[in-house]
Structure formats: C-alpha cells, structure tokens
C-alpha cells in the first residue's frame, strides 16, 4: 500500500448557515486547497461525504455538483453516505484511491445543511438510520438510543450525571478557543447540574441525558486534501501521514448486541487502526471522539483503548482529558460544542487533528502533538471508522 498524506485542511464555521449546501462545501474545499498550496498539481478525485441532502435539501449526486463548482471537471467524483460516519468513510475511500496508486491528489469534503428543516423533521431524518421494523416504528431516535445506553452504562460502571457534566464543561471550554465552533460559550456545574437554575437551563432530552449532554444541530462543511508520497515530497514542509485506518460494523439494532454497553465496533475499528499504524493507544497525544452525547466520549475513550472499562469517568474527574491533561480529548470542542453537521463531522475531526499535528491549532494547541486519533461513530455504534494520524518531520 502506498503511503497517504494530508496536505491541507480547512472548514467553515459550524452553526446555523444561510449558505446553500454547495456554498458550504465549496468554502471548506477552497480553504483546504489553499492550505495545501498545490500549485499546478491537479486534483484527481473529489469525494463528498453527506447523509441527508437527498431528504432535507432535495439535492443528490453531490460529488458531481462539487467538482463542477470547484471547476475541477473532468476529475473523478462521487458522494459517500454512511450515516454519521460518512465523513471518515469518505476519507477512507480517498485514502484507498491514493494507497492503490489510482490517484495522487484527492479532495475529501464533508457537508451537511440540516437546520433548514424543523427539529422534528431533523430528528426524524437522523432516526431513519435505525432498524425500521424493530426500532424506528417505536419512535426510536438517536437521543433515545443514547439515553437507554447511558442509563445502562451509568448503572453498571458508577458513572454519575456530574461526570457527564464534566465532559460538557470541558468541551464547551475548548470550543471557546476554536473560532470554527458552533457554540462558543462556557458552562458551569452550577448552571447545568447543581444550581437552582439548572432545571430550567438543562431540561431532559432522553433521560438520564439532558440538553447539555447532547450536541447541537449544525450546518457546516470540512475538507482535507490527500496526497501521495510523490506529491507530499514536492510540497515539502511538515507532513501528516495517515498512519492507520480501521473500520468495523455491529448489529443494526442495538437490542441484538451481546453486551449493549460494549461499543464493539469502536473496539475493533480502533484495534485495526492502531495495528496498521504500528502504535498503541498509549502513544496518542491528542484525540477527537464522537461525543454526539456526553456519555459517548466516556464509552468511546474506553472502547478505543485509552482507559479500561469503567475507568474513563475517573480519568475525567482527575482532569486527564482536559487540554492541559495527559490525553487531551476533543480540543476542538467535540461534537458537543463545535457542532455536528452529520456528514461533515468525520472530516472535521481529521481537520482538527491535522492542524494539531502541524502546530496550527492556536489557542487550543496540544503541545508537540505527534500522534493523533479520531473515532467517527456511525449509526448508534453500528458502523465506526477509526483513524490514526502521525506527524513526520521532513
């Protein structure tokens, strides 16, 4: 397999956007292309990640649309839909094109514009990824799956609501240092859990999860430029290598899993990614996890191999995952505060990590980060892509 490098990374600010879908995608793409500074080296292929445009924006064939907007015709182009893991899936497919020798430069852009529909419609569009006959018909939504998961997980491992609040507080604080984040506002334990206003500020969404345990609904786009070793050499500078990618699936319906608190697909994807990278979770300097719900940051950090089962909430109490801790998790603010434009999320995680490895993360820079890890969690854990990135100084 040929080596693959990230030569450029860019994104739009996440949040509510008035821009049409293709404008979001174009702005992020152009930012990544400028960052890569390819000169006259041509883009061979464009891969777009998106989940809901067919339903909420009435637009399909997004690869063809973006390649035209960017005036990159006749480059290859396609779109990838893999639920909330669309972003890292598209990234993986872009990497495969370069690893196989079929392309030298691939632009991967994730985009979602989902605030154009109301809350019920938006929640329903995401819920359409659940199993139709045994989940969806009962009114299952992603928050409900997270709520049921959280209750079981918290009961089994002694995780309390204060631990979930600590995740929210940390990620909101990180997001205030990220100009691309949807929500740039700190929150306090009093404000969301222990104080008299908490009941009003932080209503239940899917018990035991409350509003500040859930990511916002965002519009946005994120983009990376992948290049072959030959192109990376021409470009020079700090190189970010795609050291490992792992992907695994689990049963469509959550009820069929042997142990519903075990994020098996995360575990398997992570093991594959680390094995391919020749690294272990202990080597990681910075991680972006898929905290669509606060409980998921805890559970994924264990399943990814950073902490033992039932140990992550203790590490959070000790501040280990803060920006100044031993393993900073979600320096970008995570999905919780940076936002979650579904199809863009997996790419945005890798944008943040590429910036971290290049030392370009400004106020939220993790000092001397060399190895980075991302977990993009699709379905409710039924399709997971894990990625390990490594800085190579040339």
């Amino acid at each position, binding site marked *: 397999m040929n080596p693959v490098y990230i030569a450029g990374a860019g994104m739009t600010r996440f949040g509510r956007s008035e821009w049409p879908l293709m404008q979001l995608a174009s702005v992020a793409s152009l930012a990544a292309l400028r960052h890569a500074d390819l000169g006259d080296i041509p883009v061979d292929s464009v891969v777009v990640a998106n989940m809901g445009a067919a339903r909420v924006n009435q637009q399909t064939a997004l690869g063809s649309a973006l390649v035209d907007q960017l005036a990159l015709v006749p480059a290859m182009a396609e779109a990838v839909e893999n639920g909330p893991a669309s972003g890292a899936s598209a990234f993986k497919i872009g990497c495969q094109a370069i690893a196989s020798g079929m392309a030298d430069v691939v632009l991967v852009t994730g985009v979602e514009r989902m605030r154009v529909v109301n809350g019920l419609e938006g*929640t329903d569009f995401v819920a359409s990824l659940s199993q139709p006959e045994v989940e969806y018909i009962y009114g299952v939504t992603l928050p*409900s799956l997270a709520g049921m998961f959280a209750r079981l997980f918290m009961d089994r491992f002694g995780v309390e609501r204060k631990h979930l609040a600590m995740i929210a507080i940390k990620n909101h604080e990180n997001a205030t240092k990220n100009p691309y984040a949807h929500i740039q506002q700190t929150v306090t334990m009093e404000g969301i859990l222990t104080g008299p206003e908490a009941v009003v500020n932080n209503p239940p969404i899917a018990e*035991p999860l409350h509003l500040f345990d859930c990511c916002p609904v965002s519009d946005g786009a994120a983009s990376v430029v992948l290049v072959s070793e030959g192109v990376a050499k021409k470009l020079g500078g700090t190189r970010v290598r795609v050291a490992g990618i792992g992907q695994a699936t689990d049963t469509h319906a959550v009820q069929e899993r042997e142990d519903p608190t075990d994020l098996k697909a995360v575990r398997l994807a992570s093991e594959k990614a680390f094995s391919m990278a020749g690294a272990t979770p202990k080597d990681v300097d910075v991680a972006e996890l898929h905290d669509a719900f606060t409980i998921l940051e805890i559970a994924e950090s264990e399943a990814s191999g950073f902490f033992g089962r039932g140990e992550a909430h203790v590490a959070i109490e000790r501040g280990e995952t803060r920006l100044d801790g031993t393993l900073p998790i979600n320096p970008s603010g995570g999905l919780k505060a940076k936002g979650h434009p579904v199809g863009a999320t997996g790419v945005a995680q890798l944008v943040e990590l590429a910036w971290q490895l290049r030392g370009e993360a400004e106020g939220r820079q993790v000092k001397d980060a060399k190895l980075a890890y991302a977990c993009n969690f699709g379905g409710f854990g039924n399709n997971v892509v894990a990625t390990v990135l490594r800085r190579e100084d040339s």
Partner: protein
Amino acid sequence: MSDKVLGAKCTSCGTVNYPSRPVCRNCRNETFEPVEIGGEGKVLTFTDVYALAIDYETRYLRLAIVELDDGLRVTGQLLDDDPKLGKRVKSTIGIVREPGDKPILGLQFVPA
C-alpha cells in the same frame, strides 16, 4: 396492519432472528419459520425521550429494551408510571406509531 409481532426462527439452529433477515445470524442458514415475539421479561434499560421524530404529538415517549425470559431482547414502548431497571414486565400489542391515517401495531410493555 398485523396484530402480531413476528420474528424468524432458524430451522437449522433454532436461533430467533428479530429483526428477521434472510440469513441466520448464528449459523447462516437460509430457511426460517415465523415465530411470535413477546411474553414476560425484565426491563434492561429505558428512557423518557423528549427529542421525538415525526408522527408523535405527545410530549415524551417512554421507551425500553426488555430482556424476555427466553433471552431475546426487544425494543418497545413502556407503559408504566414507575419504571425501574430489572422490573418485571409483560408484552401487549398496541398502536406504536401513526404515520398519516395508517396506525402501526407493535410491542408495548406493562408491569407483569
């Protein structure tokens, strides 16, 4: 509108596939007989969800995953004012969703 919830029992190894699928998840056999899903069990986990999908006009829904006594786990609506982890419940069939004028029947659980 079916008044029974059905799974697919593998004719080779006996595993109940629910949801049903054309290939048995245990032995990859491809022949099944229909089997009715339901009975008594205990609440494995539950939630009151306020973030609802379309087709619901209620303020929240109480959903649960129930572990039936035969070991099968099923998702359904929990009709119980005092839900607890591990509580004994039994299944009934009721309207679980009403898209337009086409009600869908499914599993609901009440205290056993």
